């Protein structure tokens, strides 16, 4: 009975809001904004790719490479060890042969890699032959095996040759020497062999800054190499790893192995569901819409005098207030669902429909695989507490201001100003910053697995994020949001209850 009375109040709020054009403008605007966001993102990615290519042909790269090596040899004659100089000269000879068409291989192919490694092996053999004939012989054998593999066009043979060469090198190391890098490299080769992933030659064409052109496997293998080396040595770039870091690193290695072995790419920002993950940041647009809806729903009742109709009806004031709060929140959820749906469609249109995308997570060394829709849903679910707090904030402004234009203006100014100030404060080391509302609104920062690989690239594997949010946890943020919600609602309800309706 009580509930049905309350439901009728909510129904009334919906009737009133959806009779206004503003509601439909919002519903139409959300897909447009989502599409605009996707379009911009797609073009940003394109620009990055374009910059790295700079429209150069393969011949230009070879020419550049030759002249670079040439100037190194000329200028560094005295500085380099004899071995290095002969190494450079060999490499330059190889490049010249390619330019002149004596050797006919693609400069990014595995054969190219093989030829370079043959040059290196030969140079090693040359430098070692005087005091370590045994090792020199092994290097020479390796060089022969490589040449044979290239001649037979046999990737497996090449990888085997490299693996056995690494085995020799590891065996030759003394106990004090660090074998972790070599062991990691050997693991990479084994992985390449079992999954038939040919190494891409980065010597001539690619640099480490322009890895956008490389396949995701190639990019992942370079991360894998680092992580695997850390696993062997127990050290990361910062020094000896803590237990937590060790287990995190182990999990990362497991996950990357799983991805490479099963050919499951990370969800990237330029895929359908990757875009959906990115589009969750458009929730701030919904926050602005909430302020407008709350102002129409609350402040306009005062402006038009219709608040009197509500207050002389047989409902206690707090129920009328609660009906409005619940209605604004429900409408914001509807807008969230519209954003979600339009992001899926936009992602499909711009980046290609791909409903087979998978989302991998790893916990204690066990990889679990879910449909890519799951992280998207989770990420949108994490936006709901934020929407609830924004609803109470918007209602508070509407009740206090009692004039829709003023409430909208103040509300939007507070939101934009607040988030700008917070983004500046977040880079500083004030302890109080963690209690600021806008530091706590984005709950997804505590779940890095809910970001697409694009965002991870931007933030540098979460190091910046984690330093920004140091001392904060998911539960902490949730508590802060709850406290803000209670405060805003209390202030608004108190003002709503207390105020006499003096004039129309």
């Amino acid at each position, binding site marked *: 009975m009580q509930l049905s009375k309350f439901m009728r109040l909510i*129904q009334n709020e919906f*009737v009133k809001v959806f009779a206004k054009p503003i509601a439909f403008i919002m519903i139409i605007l959300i897909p447009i904004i989502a599409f605009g966001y996707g379009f911009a993102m797609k073009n940003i990615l394109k620009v990055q790719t374009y910059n790295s290519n700079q429209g150069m042909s393969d011949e230009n790269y070879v020419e550049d490479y030759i002249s670079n090596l040439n100037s190194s040899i000329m200028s560094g004659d005295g500085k380099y060890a004899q071995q290095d100089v002969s190494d450079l000269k060999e490499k330059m000879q190889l490049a010249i042969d390619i330019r002149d068409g004596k050797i006919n291989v693609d400069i990014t192919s595995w054969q190219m890699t093989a030829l370079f490694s043959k040059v290196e092996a030969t140079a090693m053999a040359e430098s070692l032959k005087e005091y370590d004939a045994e090792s020199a012989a092994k290097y020479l054998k390796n060089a022969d095996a490589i040449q044979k593999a290239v001649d037979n066009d046999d990737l497996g043979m090449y990888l085997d040759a490299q693996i056995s060469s690494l085995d020799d090198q590891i065996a030759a190391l003394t106990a004090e020497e660090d074998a972790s890098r070599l062991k990691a490299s050997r693991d990479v080769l084994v992985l390449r062999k079992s999954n038939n992933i040919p190494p891409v030659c980065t010597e001539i064409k690619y640099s480490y800054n322009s890895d956008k052109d490389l396949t995701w496997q190639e990019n992942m293998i370079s991360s894998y190499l680092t992580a695997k080396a850390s696993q062997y040595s127990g050290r990361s770039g910062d020094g000896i790893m803590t237990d937590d870091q060790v287990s995190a690193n182990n999990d990362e290695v497991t996950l990357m192995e799983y991805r490479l072995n099963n050919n499951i790419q990370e969800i990237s920002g330029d895929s359908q569901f990757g875009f959906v993950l990115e589009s969750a940041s458009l929730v701030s647009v919904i926050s602005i819409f909430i302020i407008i809806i709350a102002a129409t729903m609350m402040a306009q009742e005062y402006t038009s005098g219709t608040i009197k109709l509500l207050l*002389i*009806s047989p409902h206690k004031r707090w129920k009328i207030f609660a009906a409005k709060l619940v209605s604004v929140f429900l409408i914001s959820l509807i807008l969230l669902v519209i954003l979600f749906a339009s992001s899926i469609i936009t992602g499909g249109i711009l980046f290609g429909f791909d409903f087979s995308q998978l989302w991998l997570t790893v916990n204690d060394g066990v990889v679990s695989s879910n449909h890519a829709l799951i992280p998207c849903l989770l990420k949108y679910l994490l936006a709901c507490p934020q929407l609830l707090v924004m609803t109470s904030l918007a209602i508070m402004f509407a009740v206090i201001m009692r004039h829709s234009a003023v409430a909208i203006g103040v509300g939007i100014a507070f939101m934009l100003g607040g988030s700008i100030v917070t983004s500046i404060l977040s880079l500083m080391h004030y302890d109080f910053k963690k209690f600021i509302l806008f530091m706590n609104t984005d709950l997804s920062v505590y779940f890095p697995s809910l970001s697409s690989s694009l965002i991870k690239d931007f933030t540098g594997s979460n190091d910046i994020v984690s330093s920004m949010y140091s001392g904060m946890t998911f539960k902490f943020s949730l508590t802060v949001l709850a406290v803000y919600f209670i405060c805003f609602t209390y202030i608004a309800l108190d003002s709503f209850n207390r105020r006499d309706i003096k004039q129309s």
Partner: protein
Amino acid sequence: MDEKKVVLKAENLNKHFGKKHIIKDVSFDVFEGEIFGFLGPNGSGKTTTIKMIMGLLDIDSGHVQIGGFDREKNFESALAQIGGIIENPDTYSYLSAYKNLEVYARLRGKVDRNRIAEVIKLVGLENRINDKVKTYSLGMKQRLGLAQAILHHPKVLVLDEPTNGLDPAGIKDLRDILKFLSHEEGIAVFVSSHILSEMELLCDRVCIINAGTVLRTESMGQITDSGNNESDYEFTIGDDIVALEKIQKIMPERYRSNIQNKFILAVNVEDVPEIIKQLCNADLKIYGVVQSVKTLEQSFMEITGGGNAIV
């Protein structure tokens, strides 16, 4: 009349705005089936009292009972018995009139479509019911406001200045509707106004308030009949300056007032021929003699001391 139930009871209401004492010990009873006029000059506290009854303002001290329920203790039951228009007929102007009524019906509960149709017919809005309210004239908005106010079969209907902005035909329609509601359906109608000629035609009882104090609560007959032994007669006499001089000389005790050559004299019925004779003897030309009926306006002016709010 005596057996009728009190459906709206105000007891010693007091209200302060800041340090100003706006409403001072206001009390009255409204019975079912009567039209109760709440009269007072501008700023006398009519609307404030109504807002206190309807729960828009807190009551500093005193009680309001609606249909037997205390307004403060039993808010929802009390407010379910009352409907009204306060200050303006407030509507959602971007909705159609019918949608407005639906919204209000949901607010009230227990109102079905038949009742909505019935009320629309009663206030005479059938032709324009699906138009948006922003296209309505003030008179039509008043009708819609009235429809909203009676939608849920209230026992008490409170109308604050309902004739504002209505044309004469509209006022007559409103009067007919209100008389129907009170006398046929037994609703207690509580009307506030400062337009006395209309109230005189409409109300069964009136309460006169000034500066936040109730001056008198009486039936319409009692108030206009304000207890004089002598009735007043209006004499139309030629040459008003001479006439005034002579009347004040012959019968100063009977003279009440005059507007140019129309003289109001206090005369009993049986004395009228004698007075005419005396005036004729004084060489005054009498063009007409009419019994002067005291209007609500005159009583009101007397009671409120010229109708000026003393705040």
